[in-house]
């Protein structure tokens, strides 16, 4: 796929900087569209189209955007869950994830984990909870055999599960508890980096708060790094240190949480933030309503991908693709408005 002449795979490589646990540089992931009699590739869905960001150890980066903008694909591509990437670099602890041999990758896997969105479909209904959590622990020899049972109890305890839950099956649990099982499963491998793919979207408000608090506590205790994917901006604001805003495969803006929420620069970020409903009936929001919906990633608009819905759109936006620029220290935006 990378050999395809139509795809621009050229990326200026970055040097490893030890303060960052994860460095993503120009990451692209295209999915081929097959068509015709002999299943020829007729086009590409540009799910992730050039994403660049760095993530410091022990921090949380929130990734927000509308559905279909490539948040989840970014998370999964970083973990090498889709086979091959199309272009770009993913440096985890300075090591290019896509250059690892299968054996090395196997050793790397426990270090990077994922928590999925839907706790109802991401747990095997046929395995008891102890086995769900413990299977990978045995596979990767995280603890010696003698300590295995105690270790599982300890992990379950830290996630708010009782030891007698071990022999139960996932269907016996409520949504919030299932999500705890998912977190325990990821945590049991002593990871350094966890991709949280909308972990609270399927839960009720009061359960949501429990899970967010749990994630925060675990982060403090184990010095974890999170990539927190969500479309709920208020949750992202609460949990993140840095925030990235995605639109149609591009990271349009990214920086420290305070900068992004206090001073959103990209027109899309502004519109997104103005659309958040505020639980206060006396506040009347001045809302920027975006016209239409997100275009198809198989056939994205030319130039700046947001120009079809942007209120500040100029002729230049229609032809020239904007590049990421640093406006204030650590606050990057990809928009022609700030040239």
């Amino acid at each position, binding site marked *: 796929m990378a050999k395809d002449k139509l795809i621009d795979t050229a990326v200026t490589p970055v040097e490893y900087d030890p303060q960052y646990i994860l460095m993503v540089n120009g990451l692209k992931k295209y999915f081929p569209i097959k068509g015709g009699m002999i299943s020829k590739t007729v086009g590409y869905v540009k799910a992730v189209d050039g994403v660049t960001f760095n993530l410091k150890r022990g921090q949380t980066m929130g990734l927000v955007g*509308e559905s279909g903008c490539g948040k989840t694909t970014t998370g999964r591509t970083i973990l090498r869950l889709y086979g091959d990437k199309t272009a770009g670099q993913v440096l985890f602890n300075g090591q290019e994830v896509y250059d690892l041999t299968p054996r090395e990758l196997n050793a790397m896997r426990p270090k990077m984990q994922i928590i999925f969105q839907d706790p109802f479909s991401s747990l095997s209904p046929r395995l008891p909870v102890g086995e769900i959590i413990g299977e990978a622990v045995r596979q990767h020899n995280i603890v010696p055999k003698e300590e295995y049972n105690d270790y599982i109890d300890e992990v379950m305890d830290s996630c708010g599960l009782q030891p007698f839950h071990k022999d139960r099956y996932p269907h016996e649990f409520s949504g919030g508890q299932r999500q705890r099982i998912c977190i325990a499963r990821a945590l049991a491998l002593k990871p350094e980096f966890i991709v949280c793919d909308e972990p609270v979207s399927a839960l009720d408000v009061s359960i949501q708060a429990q899970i967010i608090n749990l994630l925060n506590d675990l982060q403090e205790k184990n010095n974890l790094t999170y990539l927190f994917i969500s479309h709920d901006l208020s949750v992202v604001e609460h949990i993140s240190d840095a925030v990235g805003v995605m639109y149609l495969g591009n990271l349009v803006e990214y920086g420290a949480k305070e900068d992004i929420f206090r001073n959103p620069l990209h027109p899309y970020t502004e519109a997104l933030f103005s659309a958040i409903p*505020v639980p206060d009936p*006396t506040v009347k929001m001045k809302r920027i309503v975006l016209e239409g919906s997100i275009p198809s990633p198989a056939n994205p608009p030319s130039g700046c991908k947001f120009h079809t819905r942007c209120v500040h759109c100029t002729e230049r936006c229609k032809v020239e693709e904007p590049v990421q620029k640093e406006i204030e220290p650590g606050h990057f935006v990809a928009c022609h408005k700030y040239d």
Partner: protein
Amino acid sequence: MAKNDGYLSVKESRRISRENRRITKAFEKQHKRKNVPESEYLTQMKDPNNSVEFENLHPYFFTDVGTSKAVDGVSFDVPIGKTVGVVGESGCGKSVTSLSLMQLLQRPQGQIVEGSIRLNMGDGKAYEITKAPNEVMQKLRGNYISMIFQEPMTALNPVFRIGEQVNEVLQLHNEEMSEESVHERTIELLEMVGIANSEGVYKMFPHELSGGMRQRVVIAMALACNPKIIIADEPTTALDVTIQAQILDLLRQLKDKINSSIMFITHDLGVIAEMADIVVVMYAGRIVEKGTAEEIFKHPAHPYTIGLMNSKPIVGKKVDKLYSIPGKVPNPINMPDYCYFKDRCELCVDKCSGEYPGVVKLSDTHEVSCYRYYKKEGE
């Protein structure tokens, strides 16, 4: 006992289901009657300015493991031209309340065993929904009450074109309409809900539209016959924030345009604050607090409402740790006989172990069910 909690012997289970069948059969017989005289379900509204009045409503579900009291005595009014927001966690009975208004409860298990729902038909006439037979209900649904569902994906039929589905609603309720005028009206409806390419969409299938567009089509179908009351059951939960903003704007405009009331069901407090004039907070099948939006958001009284508000992170407000309500919702088959929220409440007093607290009026519109407010009233 702890391990066998919720376990039933076969004998016991059979006895329950036999008993259930006896009860539900009697109810079904009532619903299926033909040519019922109108006088039987005609009633009077308590206040003619209300569009719908719920009074002491008890829809129960007769399941094989026992009777589930999904909603246990709910009373509130929906005034004409106002939006009433119903909030609560999943399983608290929000949807069941709205479905009983439509008489769309899963039958035969789901039955309204007690209470009344009065629907204002205009001109001083009112219908008692709980007593109305199926025949009558079919005429009411769509014409007077209509519903916008949560999942636009599943609410539309994937094998029919958009135009046909909207046409069907119009044809069913207006038999005298000619085919051309139905088509015209459908196009008009699609334009009204903000679909620019209405002729094109008319010929499309649901899968060709995005989530926001689908929800617009569902709204168009709901508004086809200018209903008096629209039930919006989590209409924006499946949508993105930017699309949600569009749909909420649209709903607000349309409500004023056809002068109807909206019963807005959601678990998102932000959406409620924006949409609702009156807010009803439900917990475990009962109303714990109701009042105008301002009262509820500025002076929440019930510990559950306060907890719910604190557990939601708010943009621009910094907290170190989110408040989370401890414990979980009680089992609807086996409800405690004291305040349902007592086990999770951090503010409970000695009295809370007594029977379920009655309603305390804090102001003309603000009511709360909690013992903490008994004193101020002087009991």
